[in-house]
C-alpha cells in the first residue's frame, strides 16, 4: 500500500499561539506506538535567525519554507485510519499548524486528512 505522509510545521510564534507544550520525540513515539505510525521530529534553525527567547529575529522573506526556523513533525502511515488517529492526537496536544504552508511536504491525501481534522477542531483544539 502506498505510504501516506502528513507534515505539520510549527513556527516560533508567541506563547499563546505556539503549541501549548514543548514537542518531544519521546511523546511523539508514544503516539506513534498507539497509532501504528512513524513520527519524527526535526528542529530547523533558520540561517539568518538571531536572538533567543522573547526577541527572535529572522529574515524569512526570501527563504524556502523548509529553511525557516520551525519544528517539523512528520507522520508516515500505511493506511488512512492510522494517519487520522495520529494527526488527530497531535492536533489535540499541539494544535493545528496555523498556515496553509504549515503542511508543506505532506502527500496530497495526507494533506487532505490534516485539513479535515483541522476543521474538526476549529484549527485550534
Amino acid at each position, binding site marked *: 500500500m502506498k505510504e501516506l505522509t502528513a507534515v505539520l510545521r510549527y513556527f516560533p510564534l*508567541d*506563547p499563546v499561539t505556539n503549541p501549548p507544550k514543548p514537542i518531544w520525540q519521546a511523546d511523539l513515539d508514544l503516539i506513534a506506538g498507539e497509532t501504528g505510525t512513524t513520527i519524527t521530529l526535526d528542529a530547523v534553525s533558520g540561517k539568518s535567525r538571531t536572538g533567543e527567547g522573547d526577541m527572535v529575529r529572522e529574515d524569512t522573506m526570501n527563504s524556502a519554507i523548509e529553511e525557516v526556523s520551525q519544528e517539523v513533525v512528520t507522520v508516515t502511515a500505511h493506511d488512512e485510519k492510522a494517519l487520522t488517529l495520529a494527526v488527530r492526537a497531535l492536533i489535540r496536544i499541539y494544535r493545528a499548524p496555523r498556515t496553509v504552508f504549515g503542511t508543506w511536504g505532506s502527500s496530497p491525501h495526507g494533506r487532505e486528512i490534516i485539513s479535515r481534522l483541522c476543521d474538526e*477542531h476549529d484549527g485550534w483544539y
Partner: protein
Amino acid sequence: MKILGIVGSCRKLGNTEILVKEALMAAQDQGAKVDIVRWTNYDIFPCEGDAVCMFLDKDCKHKGNDGHDYLLNMMYEFDGVVLGVPCYILEVEAVVKQFIDRLFILSSRPSKMIGKPAAVIVPYATRGWTSYAFLQPTILLHFLGMHIIDKQLIHTQAMSESAGDPLAKEKARRIGKEVADAVRTGDHSYKGDPGICPVCHERNIRIMSDNQTVECGICAIRGRLTIVDGKIRAEFPQEHLAWHRFAPESLYRHTTYEVKPSKDYFIRKWPDLKEQRAKYKEFLDIDRAAGEARS
C-alpha cells in the same frame, strides 16, 4: 501637543462631528493644538490583496488615487487621536474597516503611531444594537500600536441632538481632556469600562470549540471562565497578556513566520495553480456581468 479628531461619518454637523469637536474643544482647553478630518470625505479603495506592499516593499497601487496614504500620514503628525464614528447595524461605519484593510502597508512601513494615546467616541441610536461597536475602532488603533485610554458609547439619535445634550457633551469633553492629559503626562492608563479582556477591555469573548477555553477575539489571549460570588470572570494567564495579538513582538512573529514564508509557497504553487484555475476563467464572466449591472 497636537491632537487629531477623526470623524468617520458622512453627516455634516451630525452627532459624531459635534461630539468629536466637543472633545477637541476640551483638549484645546488643556493646551493642545487640535485639528479635525472627516475620513468619509475621501475615497478609500478596497485592498486588492496583491501584497506588493508586503512582499515587494512597493507602494500600494492606490497610493495617490485615493485618500488612505494621505490620511495615514496626516495621523502621523499628531501626538494623540480622538476617533469618532457612528454605530449603525451593530458595528461602526464601514470606513474604519476599509481603512484597516489597507494597513497591510505597515508590514513594510511601520506605524508611526506606536505608543501614542487615543480614545473612541461612538454615537448610537438604539440600546441593544451596539454589540460590536468598539470592535473595528479597537482593531484599528491597536494595529497602529496606539494606547486606547477610553471608549465611550453616546446615546443620541436626532440630527445634531448631542449639541443640546449636556451628558453627551460631558462624555465627549472628558474624552478630549483625557487624551490631552495622556499626551502631556505620558500616563496612558485605561479610564473606561474595564470590560472582560484586560488588554482591550472589550466584552466579546469567544468560547473555543473545546468548550473549556475562552479567547478574546481581538487580542487572541486565552484563558478560562470562572464564577466568583455569582459573577462571571475570565482569567487569563499573566504571561499571555504581554503577547496579545497586537503587541509589537507578536505582530513581528506573525509577519515573519506566518506571512513572509508564503511568498515561497505562492511561487512554488503557481505553476500548478495557473493550469488549475483556467477552467474558472472560462466559466461565466464575472467582470462583464458587473459592468452590465452598472450600465
